[in-house]
């Protein structure tokens, strides 16, 4: 355990996003947690694995569903100094996607690297 956690001052928070958008509300409500959490000055990372990578795809047009397209909100994360955004390479590949298909710059990582990132966290919020 490092000093920061010992002192209780700053914890490493990881949000693990595994659900596609719109079919269920988890993706949208998770993003609401991330935005609120940004005010707490913790060490925040976001992981997108499995269907979670679909949250970040470009070209979402929700008009016919009569729901709000929340994908542009991910672009605001940088304003909140949330920029540790990890995307599983295999998850992208299995879905025929590349980094160029995503609405924000991300760090595409291997399974092994993602596992390391998860291992180094204090609090893991999974949705």
């Amino acid at each position, binding site marked *: 355990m490092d000093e920061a956690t010992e002192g209780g001052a700053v914890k490493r928070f990881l949000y693990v996003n*595994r659900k596609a958008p*719109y*079919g*269920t509300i988890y993706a949208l409500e998770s993003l609401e947690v991330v935005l609120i959490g940004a005010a707490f000055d913790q060490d925040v990372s976001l992981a997108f694995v499995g*269907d979670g990578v679909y949250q970040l795809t470009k070209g979402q*047009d929700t008009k*016919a569903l009569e729901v709000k397209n929340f994908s542009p909100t991910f672009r605001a994360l940088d304003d909140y100094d949330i920029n540790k955004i990890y995307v599983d390479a295999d998850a992208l590949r299995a879905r025929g996607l590349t980094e160029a298909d995503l609405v924000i710059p991300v760090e595409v990582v291997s399974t092994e690297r993602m596992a390391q990132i998860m291992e180094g966290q204090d609090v893991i919020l999974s949705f």
Partner: protein
Amino acid sequence: MLHTVNKSPFEHSALETCLRYARQGAAVLLIEDGVYAAARDTAVSKQVEEALKKVSIYALEADLAARGMRNRVIDGVRLVDYEGFVDLVVEHNAVQSWL
């Protein structure tokens, strides 16, 4: 018979199970997160292309568009709007939802 599938094929077994039971000439309508199965060049697209030889496959356009998948659809998968969904229900003798 009309089958509907509303789950992502990457996380759930619903599509796979549906395709096992769908018989020659049946129709399969992909809705909600199920539309991800309609996308080209994925780990499941071969399975869907294979299924097209046996069944008709439709995808709900509103769901594809919402997910940014409108322009990635496998050749042979037909797009329908909600009225087209209603037509499919009317045209088939029964509907089986693979939830």
